[in-house]
């Protein structure tokens, strides 16, 4: 069992699979962002990531030079109550005049709206905002959203305010906190361009990691941060450990099979630099 886990991890460290995440890699079908409802960083980072992927998407033959498709932002009533509604003057300028806001009373309605939105060809990307871990958003619903988004090529970013990291089929899962912003050029005492500390804790084709994301002149900048509990020179090892985490969907659940969980725990313990579990 342990041997198998090592082999798979080794396979995945080849360049095709274990490429570190970086801005400009393009959109994934569904990504999830966990954030606190007490700050605006969840949606801020979601918009920044989605816009970054949207700017870098591959152009098809004969496509219009300017993409004027709508952007759909779905919120449940609880999310509106916790974090407010979009404010047009504060939105990124690219999407100011093409935002469609959907207010769903229930979580089921929000999921319906999200699925309809990703099936619409006139939508550039979709942002969803739900509070907590609703019963309706189980693995089946999540998988359904991923498949629909993959089939129609409309990326979906789901912001989970105060959610727990439950089972999900999202291709990338992030945990985002606000980070102190860079000092502006003119007024050093003022808040600067928004910045976030984003932890990619599960991704299909990237090893996990932590970055400091910030927006600068319409571009997304990412500075890698050392993973908690290790120093920077152990970065390659953390990659290896992270792949094991990242490829197994089941590891997010509460240990479905004891043997699997123990083997997984063992592999991480061996790989971490200072003898403690790196992640999880």
């Amino acid at each position, binding site marked *: 069992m342990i041997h198998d886990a090592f082999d798979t991890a080794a396979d995945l460290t080849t360049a095709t699979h274990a490429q570190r995440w970086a801005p400009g890699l393009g959109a994934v079908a569904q990504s999830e962002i966990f954030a606190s409802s007490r700050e605006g*960083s969840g949606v801020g980072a979601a918009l920044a990531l989605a816009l970054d992927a949207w700017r870098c998407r591959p152009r098809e033959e004969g496509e219009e030079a300017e993409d004027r498709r709508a952007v759909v932002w779905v919120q449940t009533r609880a999310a509106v109550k916790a974090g407010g509604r979009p*404010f*047009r003057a504060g939105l990124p300028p690219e999407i100011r005049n093409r935002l469609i806001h959907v207010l769903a*009373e229930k979580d089921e*309605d929000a999921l319906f709206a999200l699925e309809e939105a990703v099936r619409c060809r006139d939508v550039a990307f979709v942002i969803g905002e739900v509070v907590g871990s609703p019963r309706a958003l189980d693995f089946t619903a999540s998988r359904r959203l991923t498949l629909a988004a993959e089939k129609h090529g409309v990326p979906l970013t789901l912001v989970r305010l105060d959610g727990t990291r439950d089972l999900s089929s999202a291709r990338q899962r992030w945990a985002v906190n606000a980070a102190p912003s860079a000092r502006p050029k003119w007024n050093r005492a003022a808040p600067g361009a928004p910045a976030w500390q984003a932890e990619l804790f599960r991704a299909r084709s990237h090893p996990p990691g932590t970055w400091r994301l910030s927006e600068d002149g319409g571009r997304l900048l990412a500075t890698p941060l050392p993973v908690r509990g290790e120093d920077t020179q152990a970065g390659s090892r953390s990659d290896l450990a992270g792949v094991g985490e990242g490829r197994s969907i089941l590891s997010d659940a509460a240990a479905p099979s004891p043997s699997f969980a123990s083997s997984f725990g063992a592999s991480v313990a061996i790989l971490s630099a200072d003898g403690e579990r790196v992640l999880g």
Partner: protein
Amino acid sequence: MAPRRILSIWLAAFAIDRWRLTEGCARGQGADAQPLVLITETAHGPRIAATNNAARASGARIGTMLADARTLCPSIQAVPGDPAGDLDMLEKLAVWARRWGPWSALDPCDGLLVDVTAVAHLFGGETKLLADVHRAFDTRGFAIRAAIAPTAGAAWALTHYGPDRSILAPDHDMEARLSDLPVAALRLDDDVLTVLRRLGLKRLGELGTVGRDALHRRFRNRKSPAANPLVRMDQLLGRVPEPLLPVVPQHVPLVQRRLMEPIRHRTLLDTVLGDLAADMVRELEGAGQGARRLDLGLWRVDGEVVMRTLELAAATRDAGHIVRLFGEKLGDIDAGFGIELVRLRASWAEPLPANQADIEAAAERHGTSLSAFVDRLTIRLGSKAVRRPVLKGSHLPERSQAWRPPLDPESPSQDELRFHARPLKLLDRAEKIAVLYATPDGLPQRFRWRGDVHEIARVEGPERIAPEWWRERGTARLRDYYRIEDDAGRRYWIYRYGIAGDGRGGAPEWFLQGLCA
């Protein structure tokens, strides 16, 4: 280009003629032989709206009270008039009158105007055209007077006050020909006619003797044509154009299914609905239209009618889409003993040119269109759920944006000022926070929001937004907005409501209104 020719038709006794036709008696025969008036109810009692020949001979006049007329002729019969029915009939006659010209307009409440420019030769000349009009209306039992003139005003004047069947040729001197008509031929309001009578102006020709400047000065405040004799005179002589609103017959697409066996089950209803939608699509396609509103009526065996209405974000002619949207609305229908008639009606349709259908199942690959997406969400979540923010003219943040339907065209507006940094999200109601700051107007240093204490690390402000004194009460206070970042990097938008010593309440309060990205 042929000179303009307008045919005016005046149904001189329209209300009485229509009453006679509904009664089914000939003119002067049966019930029409006795004195009879049509009345309207007014605040002071019934007033005469129309009279027949016998009533007019016995002294009843239009506009007098019925009680006064009864003193002259006690045997007078009074029947309630039907102005709405008259107007309805007049509309039908207007459509019918298009047999003499390409378009016709209503001239409420008892006249019609038909454009007969360059069509008289089809009837063998204008005299024969007028004869044909008279013959046709006589056959239908309406007494009319008709005239043809180069302008609608002149034709109207000749119909009502000139000789019957008069024709004013384009080369005639209109001013000389019409100078003998009374000033009432100008289609003026009663009070203007009174003024003209008091000025001693009785004929159209006399208006020219006074001098245009004098008349212009006397009626300089009257803008409406019906209140200004000069405008009416110019319209009559064709010096200014007079736009007329033509009557266009509307065809409301309607399809229905009478069912041999009443249906009680949803699957059967869905089948019928699918058939109806296909029929409706064919009907709309023929008319080059797309449906914006659809009414579905279900007639039950026991006499109940269930109506379901559907509004669409954009004109559509997609049967599958219609069926899917109605399917959401049919869940709670009580079929009772069964439904025997199903009718689908497109009460609002918009032009929708035919376009090439999706080839090679492109829809499956490319997904739905934006309007279909909006329709589906609107049906399930309600029309208030799908909206988009648009700018509104206000500096107060919560008033500076409005929510509009997503496919409405955006009205032009001034762009936001670039140096205003605004938060990404705005709370529905600004939440009260407790703030530590140097009074009276120092920078905030620490605040408590939703039970947590935030140390403020960076701050920018204040940005002062004054209350809208033209709208709010006098006690509204100014707001000083601060953009802040706490020690963990969380960015907020807070404001102090009022300033100490502004005389509009006690100590200023602090609110958190926005969450920055």
